[in-house]
Each structure stands twice: as C-alpha cells, then as structure tokens.
C-alpha cells in the first residue's frame, strides 16, 4: 500500500533516474563515463548533437539521470505534485538529455526564470512548468560558451549571461505565444523559443559567427535503448494495473479528450488511466520503430520519451496516430527516406499537433501531419539549431493556419 501511495504521488520518476544511473555505472568504466560526460558538457548541443555519439551510452545515461535528479529534487523541494504537465516536462528533459541538454547549459536558464520570479515577487511554483520546458533553448548557452570561436574567458560569462537573460524574458513571452495557435501546439514553448532562436541566430551572424544545425548521430546502441524503452513501457502498464485492476474501463475517458492545451490526463481521468496511456504510447512508438526499421539514436529515444511524457498531457493513440501517418505519408511521397533521422524525428515530435486530430478528426489530423513534415524541414536552418523543440516551432505555424480556418467552418455549420 505504501508503494502504491508513493507511486501515486511521484509517478515513478525517481525509479527512472535511479535505474538509468545504475545502468550507466555498469555499462562502462567510470573513467570512460567521466570523459564522455565532460565531452557532453563541453559540446555545442546544437540540433542534432547526439550525446550517444559525443560521449557514449554510459555518459549519456549519466547525463539523463543527473538532469532528472536535479529537476525532480527541485519539484520535490517545492512540494509540487507530479501531474500531467510536470510529468511531461520531466520526461521531455530526460528525452532531450540524449541530444542537447545538460546541467551546464540548462542551469543558467533556470536561474533566469528564478530571477524573474524574484523580480515580480511571485512564488517560483507559478513558473515551474516554464522552468521545465525552458531547457529546450539550452544549446544557446553551450554554443556561446564552447563553439562560438570567442575566447573562453569571455565566452563562458557571455553564455551564462545569455542563458540567464533568456530565462528572465521567457515567462511573459511563452504566455503570449500560446494564443497564436490557440493551444493546438502541445510544444508551445518550442514555438516561442524558435522565434527567440531566430533572433539570436541573426545576432550571431551579424558578428560573423555562423550558427547552423549539425548532424552527429549514433545508432550503435539500438537494442539496449529498445530494451530500456520496452521495460519502461511495460512498467507503466503494470503499475497502472497495480493501482487499479479495472483501469482499461476508465481509459476510455482519455480517448474522448481532444488533448488541446490544457488537458491534464491525471487530473481529468485519474492516475492509473494516465499511466496506462503512457505505457501504451511507449509500445506504439516501439511498434513504429520496428515497422519502419528505425535504428534508435539519441534523438529517436528523445522523441519517444517526449511522446511518453506528453501521454500524461494531451497525447493518446487516437489523436496521435493520424498525425504520425500524415508525416509518414508526406515523407513517403517526397524525396526523403522513411527511416532517415529527419523523418523519424518528425514522426514522433509531429504529435505536437495531436490536439488538431483530437478536435477536428483523424482526416484533418492526417493533413496537419502531412503539412507539418514540410514545414519542419524548413524551420531547422531558420532557427540555427538553438531551439531543440524544432518540431514545436514548426507545429505552431501549422496550427496557426489550420485552426482559424477550421473554426470558421464549424461556425458556419452551427
């Protein structure tokens, strides 16, 4: 009973980072892990910097576990309940800790948001969701520090300053941008940060520093990562049934939701159905991996963990599959290879548009995914790779075009 109560309060997050930390200790010699971790901390982190390629598997898992530990401890210290958006934020951090996020480049952003809360005399809990998702622009910090070509004496303070400054201005900006797409882009902060990344990229260019996306990817650890995801997905389903052995009946409540922001499945349907949904979405992602013969790299496991995270906050099979099919069809009909990195990432992260499918139906969801695939190919060079949530950036534009048009037809129907 005590275990069930603990799981109810914390939603297995501590078990995830303890497991990953333990795994990292056994996969390689400690010295190799430390060297790999140092390489991760001093890399640019620009999209796509696969930490599996830069630091190896053990160091990447250590990076994921350390980030989760810090952010989960903060949540625990502030006595914030782990609900849908908090869970989504933590799993998004875990996912992107495989390609772009680390303690060096995320903490300045956290400090900036903390300063914002001090300046406005508001409780830091009020901006906790923004703190979690703000980590998506962390490459701005590490690129400035280690890859901008500026002398380290100046580049490190400049990187910290840019991170703190960005964190400070982020809360009012993200609150504003959510209106642009009416809550139909689940990665709204990715949209907001894409705009900021565009401005920073242009600023760097003006001083002769070119920022452009990189393509460092490793698929050497496919089966280990596949097994980890399989274990996580199965665990969520088992825990869901441990909490409520008739959870599948309540699960239909989740499938009825459009998923539009703000839909907290834990609040709306209960913990057990939300956990079941997380596990099922994990399995669905692994089925896609097998069917399309995808090799799991850092960004792919990042995409799957993010999908699982948002399965507590808007995504479910009914609203996600049409979007995934739309992205796949667009890639199939154009000149892209179906299991190439850019396509695979778009399949998983394109589910940012799941609420469009949930609200307007699977056919519209399919077309949203179809259009999204083309837009996301254009946004990456546009924002330089500072915004790790590039799909969120692209999805914001797609939703902003689709939603007003669809809403106008609904009004005519009425």
């Amino acid at each position, binding site marked *: 009973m005590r275990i069930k109560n603990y799981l109810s309060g914390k939603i297995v997050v501590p078990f995830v980072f303890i497991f990953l930390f333990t795994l990292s200790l056994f996969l390689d010699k400690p010295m190799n892990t430390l060297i790999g971790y140092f390489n991760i901390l001093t890399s640019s982190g620009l999209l796509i910097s696969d930490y599996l390629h830069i630091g190896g598997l053990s160091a990447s898992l250590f990076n994921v576990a350390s980030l989760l530990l810090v952010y989960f401890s903060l949540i625990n210290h502030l006595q*914030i309940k782990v*609900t849908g*958006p*908090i869970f989504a934020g933590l799993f998004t951090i875990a996912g992107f800790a495989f390609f772009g996020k680390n303690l060096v480049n995320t903490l300045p952003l956290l400090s900036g948001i903390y300063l914002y*809360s001090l300046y*406005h*005399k*508001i*409780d830091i*809990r*009020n*901006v*906790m*969701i*923004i703190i979690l998702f703000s980590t998506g622009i962390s490459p701005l910090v590490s690129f400035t520090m280690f890859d901008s070509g500026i002398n380290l004496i100046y580049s490190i303070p400049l990187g910290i300053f840019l991170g703190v400054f960005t964190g400070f201005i982020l*809360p009012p900006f*993200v*609150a*504003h941008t*959510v*209106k642009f797409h*009416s*809550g139909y882009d689940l990665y709204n902060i990715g949209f907001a940060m894409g705009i900021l990344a565009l401005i920073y990229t242009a600023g760097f260019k003006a001083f002769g520093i070119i920022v452009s996306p990189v393509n460092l990817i490793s698929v050497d650890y496919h089966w280990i990562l596949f097994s980890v995801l399989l274990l996580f997905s199965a665990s969520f389903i088992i825990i869901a049934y441990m909490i409520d052995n008739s959870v599948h009946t309540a699960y239909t409540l989740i499938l009825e939701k*459009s998923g*539009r*922001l*703000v*839909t*907290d499945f834990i*609040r*709306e349907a209960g913990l057990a159905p939300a956990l079941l949904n997380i596990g099922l979405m994990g399995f669905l992602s692994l089925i896609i991996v097998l069917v399309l013969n995808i090799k799991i790299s850092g960004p792919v496991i990042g995409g799957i963990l993010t999908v699982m995270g948002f399965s507590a906050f808007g995504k479910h099979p009914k609203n996600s599959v049409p979007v995934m099919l739309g992205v796949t069809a667009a890639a199939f009909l154009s000149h892209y290879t179906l299991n190439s990195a850019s396509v695979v990432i778009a399949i998983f992260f394109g589910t940012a548009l799941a609420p469009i499918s949930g*609200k307007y139906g699977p056919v519209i969801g399919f077309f949203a995914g179809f259009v999204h695939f083309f837009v996301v190919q254009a946004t990456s060079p546009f924002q330089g790779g500072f915004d790790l949530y590039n799909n969120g950036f692209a999805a914001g534009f797609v939703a902003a075009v689709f939603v007003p048009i669809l*809403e106008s037809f*609904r*009004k005519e129907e*009425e």
Partner: protein
Amino acid sequence: MALHEIKKNCKIVNELLMYLMRNSFHQIEMHIDYQTDESVITFIVDECPSEVISQMAENLNKGRRYEFEGYYWELMGESDNTNQLSIIGMLVDGIHFEEKNGRTKMIIHRKHTFLKK
C-alpha cells in the same frame, strides 16, 4: 498585487460568460468583488439545468493548481466553440451555487494567496 491579477480575473469572467451564453443563457447578471486578498465573481441566471451546474462544479471544484498561474491562463476566452472550464478550475479555489426564486447564483472564489511570502 500579484502579477496580471486583474487580467486573469477578466479572462475568467470572459470564459464563463461565453460558456453560459453557449448554454443558451441570454440574460445574465454578473458581479465582481475585487478585494485585496481575494476576488469573488458572481453570475446570476434563470433556471439553470442540473447538467450545467454539475459540469461547472466538477471542473471548478477540482482544486487550485499554482503551477498554472504563470502559464496557459492566456488561453481562457480565446475559443468561441470550445470551453476551457478546466483551466478556470486550476485558477480558482472553488464554486458554490445558491438557488432562490427560480434563479441560480454561481459564486466563484479566487484567493490572491500565491504571492511570495
């Protein structure tokens, strides 16, 4: 005074007004009592069906969520055919109803207690 307190109250009123009008209430009285540490928003309508009362009570009595104070509240009052009662539920301390002479009074409390102490 807390950040965007007036704007949040106006958004809550706007969203609730749209919700009631979509539910075919076309004569609505509204009153807002904006105090130092609490806002009390009151709507009065004629013959409110039990389904509307139960939907509002279910959404607005789920409990305040402080982490939503800094984000997402801008979505209230933005859509003309989708209700965002769930967001209001995260931003208010509760709702109660009073029935008198065939009229229903809906009283919503929102404490301004999330300020840093």
